[in-house]
């Protein structure tokens, strides 16, 4: 039996323009979509564009939503990942190492000294940069399973591969991340 989608009830309300339902869906889904984009592209502005475009597509889809076909989360991930792939294929995306922005630094423990905050922030940037150097499918597997905390079955379904293939990608992704972080001097 198909699992009940907890968001299914919100979609007709969204289609009718119910602002409370719209806010609820944006507040609950935006952080994950944004994080997915940032980690897949290593570019915050591009990730924001993708999050926005994903919601625009949801607004268009809401009226025709067929409950029972796909879970909203799965649909959102699929749309966002496709947009990430489009961006990665296009020459518009520049996978360059970026300086930490103020918003990222604000995420770090405020009780630390400025030097400690800077060091941690720089380490975060190095990790994001190492992630961007992984082959795309390995990165996608690691982002979906580790960072987005999807089950292995959900992640494999989204990627259109078997669980065995996903596990192989995850194992290589972790091994490569360790090697890249050693190379960058983040760890020994």
């Amino acid at each position, binding site marked *: 039996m198909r699992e009940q989608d907890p968001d299914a009830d919100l979609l007709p309300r*969204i*289609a*009718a*323009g*119910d*602002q409370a339902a*719209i*806010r609820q869906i*944006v*507040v609950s889904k*935006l*952080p994950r979509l*944004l*994080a997915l984009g*940032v*980690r897949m592209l290593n570019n*915050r502005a591009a990730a*924001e564009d993708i*999050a*926005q475009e994903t*919601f*625009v597509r949801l*607004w268009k889809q*809401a009226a025709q939503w067929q409950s029972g076909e796909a879970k909203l989360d799965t649909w959102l991930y699929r749309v966002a990942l496709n947009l990430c792939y489009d961006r990665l294929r296009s020459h518009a995306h520049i996978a360059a190492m970026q300086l930490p*922005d103020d*918003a*990222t630094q*604000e*995420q*770090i423990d405020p009780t630390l000294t400025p030097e400690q905050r800077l060091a*941690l922030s720089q*380490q*975060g940037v190095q*990790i*994001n940069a190492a*992630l961007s150097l992984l082959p795309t499918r390995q990165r996608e597997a690691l982002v979906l*399973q*580790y*960072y987005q*905390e999807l*089950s*292995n079955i959900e992640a494999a379904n989204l990627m259109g591969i078997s669980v065995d293939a996903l*596990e192989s990608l*995850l*194992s290589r992704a*972790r*091994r490569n*991340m*360790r090697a890249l*972080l050693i190379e960058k001097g*983040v*760890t020994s």
Partner: protein
Amino acid sequence: MTTEDFSQLAKIYGADIKRWPEEHRPMIGDLATTQFTTMRQILDEELALDALLNQDCIAPASPALLDSIMQSAPQTKLAKHNAYFWQNSHWLNNTFKALGFTGIGLAGALTGMLIVSVMSSHLMVNNNELTVAEMVDFGQDWR
């Protein structure tokens, strides 16, 4: 489950066993009774990588992004009507402007009228205070 299986799973899913597929978890307890130290070493190795991966934190969405997404969302018919009305109400703006100018003009006229009225009433009072002798020229010859 063997220690090799355990090591393989740790290399795939990391050190946090809660993240492992559920079907593998019950077997971990059995292995721990005999291989606890080896298991600890395997997990420690993956724990170091997990700790680094967890340092990659993403800043929350800006209020501007949130607003922009909210504004792109569908609206109720009434909200759409209201938005259309206010966005396309140039005639209303022009009417308000015209009314504003008229109001200023009227206020000016009223102020002017008030000043004239006050001044003329002042003159009237002065006239009333003139004596009969001052008002009437009797002529030099009469004296």
